[in-house]
């Protein structure tokens, strides 16, 4: 049987922060079930708590209420996150950065070397393994960050707008590569984005969130067949129609958020 990533069940998740004016609710009453090996994209206006949700999944923050359960039996590493600004350590070479999550877990030197070799090949950074991040372009740094996550072989890949800072060409290339790598490995992916296009090109389902507090407004199935040619897909009429649907839902939310803040 094909090996698939973790199943995630989120039930009534809530996160609040103490703030100057009392308590700010970042996300409230979030219910979401994610199947093993599913690619789920989360879109929503700024401040809808999508990053907070991801940080809770990553173990970087703890929820104030609700239950998060992850079924990742048989996986050594539950999750690995790819951050918006690569987050490669400037003081480590590319190969040391990529091997970081293996070193921290006490993997043997020889095994680290072999797995890092493979991950660098996967993202096309073999020639740059001895470079420091500042010597690389933004796109190459993001490849390094993806390699660092994949090399740990996580059951879940968490991605927080990983390509938002890239130019359009680099973004398209990396999106296509991510889809290719995901189709080969079938990890569960939770992918945050503010781009509807990106959500439809990459994901199996798109979760639309509302702002203040962050709640799930709607979950849309993305019916396009795989393997996907993401560039060709974005030109089809079905793609355009679905994009418009989601935009209508989001627009309402963006307007509502603006009314709350702009007087």
């Amino acid at each position, binding site marked *: 049987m094909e090996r698939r990533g973790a199943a995630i069940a989120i039930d009534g998740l809530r996160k609040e922060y103490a703030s100057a004016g009392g308590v700010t609710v970042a996300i409230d009453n979030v219910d979401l079930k994610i199947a093993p090996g599913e690619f789920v994209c989360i879109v929503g206006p700024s401040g809808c708590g999508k990053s907070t949700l991801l940080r809770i999944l990553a173990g970087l923050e703890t929820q104030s209420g609700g239950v998060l359960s992850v079924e990742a039996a048989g996986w050594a590493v539950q999750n690995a996150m790819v951050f918006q600004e690569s987050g490669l350590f400037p003081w480590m070479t590319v190969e040391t950065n990529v091997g970081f*999550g293996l070193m921290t877990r006490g993997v043997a030197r020889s095994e680290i070397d072999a797995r890092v070799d493979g991950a660098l090949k996967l993202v096309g950074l073999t020639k740059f393994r001895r470079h420091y991040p500042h010597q690389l372009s933004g796109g190459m740094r993001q490849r390094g960050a993806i390699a660092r996550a994949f090399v740990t072989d996580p059951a879940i890949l968490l991605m927080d707008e990983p390509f938002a800072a890239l130019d359009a060409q680099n973004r398209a290339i990396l999106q296509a590569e991510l889809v290719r790598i995901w189709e080969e490995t079938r990890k569960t992916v939770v992918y945050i984005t503010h781009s509807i296009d990106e959500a439809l090109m990459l994901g199996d389902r798109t979760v639309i969130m509302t702002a203040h507090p962050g709640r799930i407004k709607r979950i849309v199935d993305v019916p396009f067949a795989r393997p996907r040619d993401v560039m060709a897909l974005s030109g089809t009429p079905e793609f355009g129609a679905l994009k418009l649907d989601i935009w209508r839902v989001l627009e309402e939310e963006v307007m509502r958020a603006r009314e709350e803040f702009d007087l």
Partner: protein
Amino acid sequence: MTRAAKFADKLLYLVSPALLLGLWQALLMMGYGDRRFIPAPTDIFWRFISVVSTGELEQHVAVTLWRTFAGYFIGAIPGIAVGLLMAMFRPVRIFFDPLIAMLFPIPKVALMPLLLLAFGFGDASKIALVATGVFFPVVVNTYAGAANIDRIYWDVAKNYGASQWIVFSRIVLFGAMPMIFAGLRIALAVAFIVLIASEFVATKTGLGFLIWNSWQLMEVDFMFAGIVTIGLLGLIFSVVFDWIEKRAVPWKLRDRG
């Protein structure tokens, strides 16, 4: 940068000291100033050569260097450690904050009598003074460097399963490294300042003693030879420091030429 441009930079680097020396020499040769009290650069140079050839200067330099380095390491290593721990652990920070705020502004030379009482008239009191002078700039810079490490690196460390020890040895130490070096550089200057001042009193060796003693004997050219030696040592250390920093911080953008 091209080779020619680099060479031009190096030449320019020498212009200001050369102009200063030339002006100094010219004024004295034209009869402005009394050469008994203000020796010309050439007088200092010849006196410098003669005291180097007798080995007198080297003795003082050796003593001063020993005190500087002993104190420097005794002060800098705990400074780095405490600075990093302050950034990592809140209780450590709360414990050290008032001590540093209170003790940092005290001119370290003012501690000399106290240190003489505690450590006697030998090298120990001078080394202790240098160590105290070095500790504060190093601890403050190290802490600032470590505390300002971008939050994303702490997140990455946590998400990728780093232990406290790995966070300390692979993230905090390296993340603070550029600022640690800034602190070490300031500390080196402080080390010389407090040591030379302390050698004015209660010792018969070291460059500080040489300068003070020559002044009292009105051997002004010998005094200047001592001052020039300190300047030369500073220049040498600055070059050595750059060399070490380039190797210790290889990820720092190196477009400063």
